[in-house]
C-alpha cells in the first residue's frame, strides 16, 4: 500500500486528539507524510468527533479521501456513523462490550444523524444494535477487531496503580495500540509519538505499557495487514503543524510583535500558539505581546492603534468577529494604517457552523466597510502558503499602508500536516516608507505619492482622523482637497496592480493543455491537486487555477485561460454562491458557468471531486457535494 486513509472516532473530550497526534508523530518518525483533519461539534464534552487522516509513503499529502481502510472507534456512535465510510477489506477496531447498544439509546446522536443511519440500516436489513451491525460488516468483507475495552482497561489497572475513574482516559491508548499493530508501525516510532505527547512521568509510562499490551494482542491475532510500503519520499526536515500553528510561525518570522484577539473558533488557537512563544526564545530578539480584548471591536481598533506606533500587528478572528471589525477597517484605510486581519472562515451565515469549515466569507471581506479605501485580500491554499502569506501580509500592509485581510479557514486551521521546514533565508521584511527623522515640512499624508511617508507616534507631531482630512491629518471638507486625497489613497490600488506580479496572484497546476480546468482557491487546493492525479488515471487531463490574491485579482491569467477553456472551466468552492466566480465576473468579466460546490461544513475529498468533475464532463452544470459525516 502506498498510502493509508484512516478514521478515528469518539466522543468530544474523550482523548481522540491524543490518539491522532501519537499516530501522526509515529508515522512521521517512520518517514511517512501525514495529514489529519479534525471534525467536531460545537460542544465541549460528549458529541461525536472524528479524525480523518492519511499516511503516505511517497509524498507529504494535502488531500483526504474516502473510503478508508481503518476505523478506530472509541464508542458505538463512531461505528454507526462511519461504517459506510469503509473500504472493502477495511479494519474496524471497536469495543465489543457494546454489542447490545442500540442506536436509539445513544443520546449524543443528533436526531437528523440518527434518522439517516436508521434509514441505511433498514435498507440493509440490519438491526439497530451494534452487534448486528458488526456482524453485517463481517459478512461484507470488513475485518472486525472486536476488543473488550473493559477487560483491557482492567488489565491496565492491574499492571499499574491507575484508579478505575481514570482508566477510561486510556481508551485512546487502545486505539493507538490497536491501530499501530494493524498498520505495522515500528514500536520505537510509537514510543516516540507517545513521548512527544506525554513528555515523561507516570502517564507516559502507563501509555507505553498499555499500548504495547494492546498492540501485542492485536498483532498476534490479526498481524499487520495494513502495513504501508516503505517510505520513499526524501522529505528532509519536517514539522508537524496545524494551520493555526503555521500562521503563528509565519507571523513571528514576519516580524509580528503584537497580536490582538478575542477568542473565537477556529481562530483563537493561533493566538494561543503565539502567546506560548511570547518570549521569542529569549534570545535578545525581543518579545511578542498577545493582547486579549473584550470584543472584536476592541481587538481591531487596538491593533490599529498599535500600528500607529510602528508595531507590526495583527488581529485574528472568524466571521462573527470580522463583522465587528468592519468599521475599524475603514478607519485604517482612511488613515493609511497598516494592519493585518487573519480571517479564519467557518460555516456561515451568522453563528452558522462554528466548528465546521467553509469559504463563504470572500465577498464580505473583499467589500467590507462602507465607503472606498484600498485593501489587499490574500487567501492561502495550504500550510506552506499560509506560512509565506502570513509574512507577505505583514509586508504588504506596511509597504502600502493599508489593511490586509489574510483569508484562511477552519479546514486549514484544524488540519495537522507534516510539512517541510521553511527556508528562512527567503523570508524578507519590507517596512515601506518609514521616516525616522521627520523634518519641519513633514506631512503624514503628503499628496506627493499614493503611499505616504510614515512617521511613528512618538517621532513628530502627527494627527489622525477618520474624517476626511488634509495632508497634515486635520479635518478638511473642501472639495479639491477631497479629490486629491481620495485619489491619492485609491491610487494605491493601481500601484499594487503594477507591483504585485501575476505569478504572486495565481498558481497554475496540472496539465498545460487540459481537457478540463478547475478554478478554485484556499483549501480547495489539496483536493484539486489530488483530483488531477486521479483524473489522469481516468484519461482526463486537468489544470487547476489557484487564486492566491483577490485584491489584486489575477485578471490577465483568468481572462486568458477563460478565453481558451471557457466551456470546460469549473468553479470549485466550499460555498453556495461560487463567490470566487462572482469575483471573476466582477473583476475580470468572465462568466464561469460550471460549479462544483460543497457547503456541508466538511472539506471536499479528492475522490468526490474527481467524480464530480467526471459528471460535469458528461454534461452536468452544477454539482453539490455532500460526502462526509
Amino acid at each position, binding site marked *: 500500500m502506498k498510502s493509508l486513509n484512516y478514521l478515528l472516532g469518539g466522543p468530544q473530550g474523550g482523548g481522540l486528539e491524543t490518539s491522532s497526534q501519537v499516530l501522526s508523530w509515529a508515522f512521521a518518525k517512520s518517514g511517512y507524510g501525514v495529514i489529519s483533519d479534525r471534525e467536531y461539534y460545537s460542544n465541549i464534552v460528549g458529541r461525536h468527533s472524528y479524525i480523518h487522516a492519511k499516511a503516505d509513503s511517497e509524498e507529504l499529502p494535502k488531500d483526504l479521501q474516502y473510503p478508508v481502510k481503518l476505523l478506530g472507534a472509541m464508542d458505538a456512535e463512531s461505528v454507526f456513523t462511519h461504517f459506510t465510510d469503509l473500504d472493502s477489506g477495511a479494519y474496524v477496531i471497536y469495543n465489543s462490550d457494546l454489542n447490545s447498544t442500540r442506536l436509539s439509546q445513544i443520546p449524543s446522536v443528533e436526531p437528523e444523524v440518527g434518522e439517516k443511519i436508521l434509514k441505511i440500516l433498514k435498507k440493509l436489513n440490519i438491526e439497530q444494535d451494534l452487534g448486528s451491525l458488526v456482524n453485517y460488516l463481517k459478512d461484507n468483507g470488513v475485518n472486525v477487531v472486536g476488543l473488550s475495552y473493559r477487560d483491557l482497561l482492567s488489565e491496565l489497572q492491574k499492571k499499574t496503580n491507575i484508579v478505575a475513574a481514570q482508566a477510561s482516559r486510556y481508551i485512546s491508548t487502545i486505539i493507538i495500540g490497536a491501530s499501530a499493530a494493524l498498520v505495522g508501525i515500528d514500536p520505537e516510532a510509537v514510543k516516540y509519538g507517545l513521548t512527544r505527547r506525554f513528555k515523561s512521568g507516570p502517564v507516559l509510562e502507563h501509555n507505553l505499557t498499555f499500548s504495547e499490551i494492546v498492540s501485542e494482542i492485536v498483532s498476534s491475532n490479526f498481524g499487520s495487514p495494513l502495513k504501508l510500503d516503505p517510505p520513499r519520499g526524501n522529505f528532509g526536515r519536517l514539522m508537524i503543524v496545524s494551520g493555526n500553528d503555521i500562521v503563528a510561525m509565519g507571523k*513571528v*518570522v*514576519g516580524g509580528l510583535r503584537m497580536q490582538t484577539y478575542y477568542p473565537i473558533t477556529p481562530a483563537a488557537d493561533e493566538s494561543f500558539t503565539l502567546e506560548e512563544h511570547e518570549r*521569542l526564545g529569549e534570545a535578545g530578539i525581543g518579545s511578542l505581546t498577545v493582547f486579549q480584548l473584550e470584543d472584536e471591536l476592541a481587538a481591531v481598533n487596538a491593533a490599529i*492603534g498599535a500600528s500607529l506606533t510602528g508595531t507590526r500587528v495583527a488581529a485574528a478572528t472568524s466571521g462573527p468577529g470580522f463583522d465587528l471589525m468592519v468599521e475599524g477597517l475603514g478607519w485604517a484605510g482612511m488613515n493609511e494604517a497598516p494592519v493585518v486581519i487573519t480571517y479564519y472562515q467557518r460555516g456561515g451565515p451568522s453563528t452558522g457552523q462554528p466548528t465546521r469549515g467553509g469559504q463563504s466569507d470572500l465577498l464580505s471581506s473583499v467589500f467590507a466597510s462602507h465607503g472606498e479605501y484600498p485593501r489587499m485580500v490574500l487567501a492561502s491554499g495550504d500550510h506552506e502558503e499560509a506560512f509565506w502569506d502570513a509574512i507577505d501580509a505583514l509586508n504588504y500592509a506596511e509597504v502600502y499602508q493599508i489593511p490586509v485581510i489574510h483569508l484562511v479557514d477552519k479546514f486549514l486551521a484544524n488540519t495537522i500536516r507534516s510539512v517541510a521546514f521553511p527556508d528562512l533565508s527567503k523570508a524578507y521584511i519590507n517596512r515601506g516608507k518609514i521616516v525616522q527623522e521627520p523634518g519641519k515640512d513633514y506631512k503624514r499624508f503628503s499628496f506627493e505619492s499614493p503611499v505616504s511617508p510614515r512617521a511613528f*507616534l512618538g517621532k513628530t507631531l502627527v*494627527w489622525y482622523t477618520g474624517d476626511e482630512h488634509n495632508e497634515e491629518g486635520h479635518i478638511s471638507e473642501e472639495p479639491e482637497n477631497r479629490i486629491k486625497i481620495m485619489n491619492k489613497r485609491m491610487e494605491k490600488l493601481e500601484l499594487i496592480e503594477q507591483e504585485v506580479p501575476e505569478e504572486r496572484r495565481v498558481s497554475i497546476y496540472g496539465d498545460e493543455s487540459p481537457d478540463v480546468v478547475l478554478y478554485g482557491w484556499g483549501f480547495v487546493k489539496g483536493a484539486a491537486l489530488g483530483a488531477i492525479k486521479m483524473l489522469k488515471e481516468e484519461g482526463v487531463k486537468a489544470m487547476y487555477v489557484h487564486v492566491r490574491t483577490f485584491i489584486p485579482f489575477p485578471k490577465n491569467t483568468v481572462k486568458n485561460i477563460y478565453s481558451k477553456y471557457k466551456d470546460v472551466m469549473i468553479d470549485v468552492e466550499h460555498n453556495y454562491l461560487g463567490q470566487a466566480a462572482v469575483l471573476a465576473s466582477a473583476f475580470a468579466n468572465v462568466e464561469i458557468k460550471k460549479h462544483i460546490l460543497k457547503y456541508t461544513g466538511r472539506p471536499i475529498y479528492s475522490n468526490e471531486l474527481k467524480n464530480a468533475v467526471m459528471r460535469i464532463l458528461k454534461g452536468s452544470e452544477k454539482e453539490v457535494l455532500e460526502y462526509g459525516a
Partner: protein
Amino acid sequence: MVLELKPTDYKSSVWVDWCPGCGNFGILSAMYQAFAELKLYPRKIVVVSGIGCSGKTPHFLNVQGVHTLHGRALPYAEGIKIANPELEVLVNAGDGDLLGIGAGHFVALGRRNIDMVVMMHDNTVYALTKGQAAPTLERGAKPKSLPKPNIQDAVNPIALAIASGYTFVARGYSGKVKHLKELIKAAIQHKGSAFLDILQPCVTYDNIHTYDYYNERVYDLQESGYDPEVKGEPEPKISEAIAKSYEKGNKIPIGIFYRNPNVPTFEERLKERIPSYMQSPPAAQIIDKSGKTVISQELFEKIFENYLV
C-alpha cells in the same frame, strides 16, 4: 535640556470651531496648562478622542492626535499604550461615546488599569448629532434640544468607574479651569487608569446644565475634607466614594473621589510575563536586518522546537 513650553505652545493652528461659550474651551485650556506645568514633551503625548464635539479636541492641540471612531477611543488608546508604554496617552471623549456606545470598553479598561487618563466631556447630550439625550442626562429632563422629556435614567459615571476598577476617579468642571488643570495633572501622575468626569456645559443644546447651574452647585470635595486615598484594602473606600457619588440635592461634589495607588498597572503585569517588556515593548523592536528577518533558522528551531519531527 529642560523644556520651557508655555500653555500656548500646545495650541495648534486649527480654528476651534466649538460654539462660542462652549464648556469644551475650559477643558482645552486646562489641558494646555497641565501639559505646560508638567513640562510634557509634545511628541511624547498622544491625545486620543472619539467622535462628537469632544472628538475634535486633538486637532486643537499641538501634540500627537488620534481622532478615532465613535465609542472606540479606548481601544485605540490601549493599543497605542501597550505597544509603546513610553507615550503619555490621554483620551478625550463624550459622555455618549464613553458611557453609551463605548460603555463595554469603559468597563474593560477598568479591569486592566493601563496607565492612561480618560477625560469624559460630560455635557448630558449627544452634541454633535444635535442634542439627543446622553447617558448622563437624568430621566424626565427636557433640555431645549429634546422634543420630549428624557425617558432613560442617567448612569452614575463615578460609581460605574469605581465598580469597573479604575484606580483614580475624579470629577472636574470646565468652569473651574484651575481646579480642572490640577485634576488633569494628578490623573497624569497617577499610575494606572484615571477617569475624569468633566462637567461641561453645552451652551447650544442644554439649557438646564448651564454655567449658572453648576456654579451654584459645585463644591470641592477635598476642600470639604473628603479623603479619597485608599490606604490598605480598597474597601471601605470604594463604598464611601460611591456613596459620595450618589449624594443628592443641590450639591455637586468635584475633586477626587477615589485613588488607589496599590493596583499594579497592566504594563507591570505584562512585565511579569515578559521580563523585557518595558525595555523593548512592541514598538521598540527591530524586526529585520537589512530586509531579512531577525528570526534565524536556529532561533526558529529553538522557539518552535515542539513542532519539529
